[in-house]
């Protein structure tokens, strides 16, 4: 790890991945489920029945998984390239 990487506290690192992704996943969930009713999606795609609460919740976690992965990848790729392959 480079100095630039190390000099932020761990809470900040974790928050930087989980928190913005939480917010964007929230927005995505609201937009998506305003347009589509989870029960309708399930009925149309033939996956059987689920309650709307379950639909919203699962939808939210799928979004969160996606957004947090992209946040984590961003953090990973912004590591300076010089360090790759070097032992610190």
């Amino acid at each position, binding site marked *: 790890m480079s100095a630039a990487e190390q*000099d*932020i506290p761990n809470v900040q690192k974790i928050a930087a991945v989980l*928190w913005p992704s939480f917010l964007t996943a929230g927005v995505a969930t609201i937009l998506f489920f305003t*347009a589509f009713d989870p029960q309708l999606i399930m009925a149309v795609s033939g996956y059987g029945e689920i309650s709307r*609460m379950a639909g919203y*919740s699962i939808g939210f976690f799928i979004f969160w998984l996606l957004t947090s992965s992209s946040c984590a990848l961003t953090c990973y790729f912004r590591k300076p390239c010089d360090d790759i392959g070097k032992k610190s």
Partner: protein
Amino acid sequence: MGTPSDQIENSSSDFYAKHKKVYPREVHGLFASLRFSGVLTLLGLYYFIPWMRWDGHQAVLFDLPARKFYIFSLTFWPQDFIYLAALLIIAAFALFFFTALAGRLWCGYACPQTVWTEVFLWMERWVEGDRNKQIKLDKSPWAKNKLILKSTKHTLWLLFSAWTGFTFVGYFTPILELGASLLQFTLGPWETFWIIFYGFATYGNAGWMREQVCIYMCPYARFQSAMFDKNTLIISYDDDRGEPRGSRKKSADPKELGLGDCVDCTLCVQVCPTGIDIRDGLQYQCIGCAACVDVCNEVMGKMKYAKGLVRYTTENAIHGIPSRILRPRMFVYMSLLIFLSAALVYSMLIRLPLELDIIRDRNALYRETNEGLIENIYTLRIINMDEQAHRYTLTAGGIEGVKLILAKKDLYAKSGEVITIPARIQIDPAYLKKIGYDIEFILTATDNSELQVIEKGRFIGPLK
């Protein structure tokens, strides 16, 4: 980032420093009372609102399972999403406006993070005692007494958090039913999950994370400086008056000792919930809670010095330039706010509480009846978004010779009801000059001819 190594050494040493727990000391004073009443009002509203009833339903309910939002006499549907979006934009501009005017008023008095942290601090003080007792307790070895105090505190916190989570979910599913199923242990899995999730978030944020939420997680804290200018109200220490700081006897004359008014009692640091020293100047960690103002005023009072060594002021005022409230930035925010609010109110007033959806049968393009008419099949959905029930009449137009046949004669929908009716449109082929036509479906309430929607549907005939 080409930082010189000595700087890295310096900065990393305090970044590495393990997070020090902040023990905010209790304060009394004008701003503390203001915050106290703010906390009571806001939390009172939060815990009370879901229990309010209105016209036989929960007064404020964002009924996610039913996909309907109730706010007193208003009912919103997913189609009304635009209002919610507009409301959020207005809220954002209001925040910009107040930030430019009065700095971080929001942070100090109204932010849920501040408000809940305050309540958690009360509970902590109530169980563990004041700041010094808390520090001593944390340093002391784990003995019976410490164990009892700590577990009492956490039990209190957890109970309060659980109630908070329950209330939160009560905004999204009817709270009476939620309460009933909680008592009968028949709570749905997702309701249970979200109660725990929100409760746990409260416990973590207000009990453990506290100022770290403001420093590391709050987007507003990061960008609020963009809305600041030299006329924005901030909390500041009066350098010229306070320095050089130093302790002295109450009877001593500071001028003789060559000292400023700051007695270096460090009380302002002890009360600060984010653990900073306001005497170091404006820092982004400062949430503008004015605890340091209250406590320093108390000290100044005891010393018989003038109050306001730490005070609400503006950057201009500190430098002796008169502050201006009415500046271009304020006019921009203000006119945007007024315009958007007016637009929102107007569009809500003219909102028609009626919707008609037309879904064309996808299985067949058209059909020829025994009489030789061309027929298309549709499914109509009537959504009555009004407070009252209505009976409707439906007619079709758009081209000559349209005949509308409904599967149901009586179109009656209760308040909030959605009715679905299969319908057929028949047209004599003599009138059909091209393949496709737009047919107009006109839906009118029988008791109010203003309550009318016209919706277009596609009619498809044979190739000529």
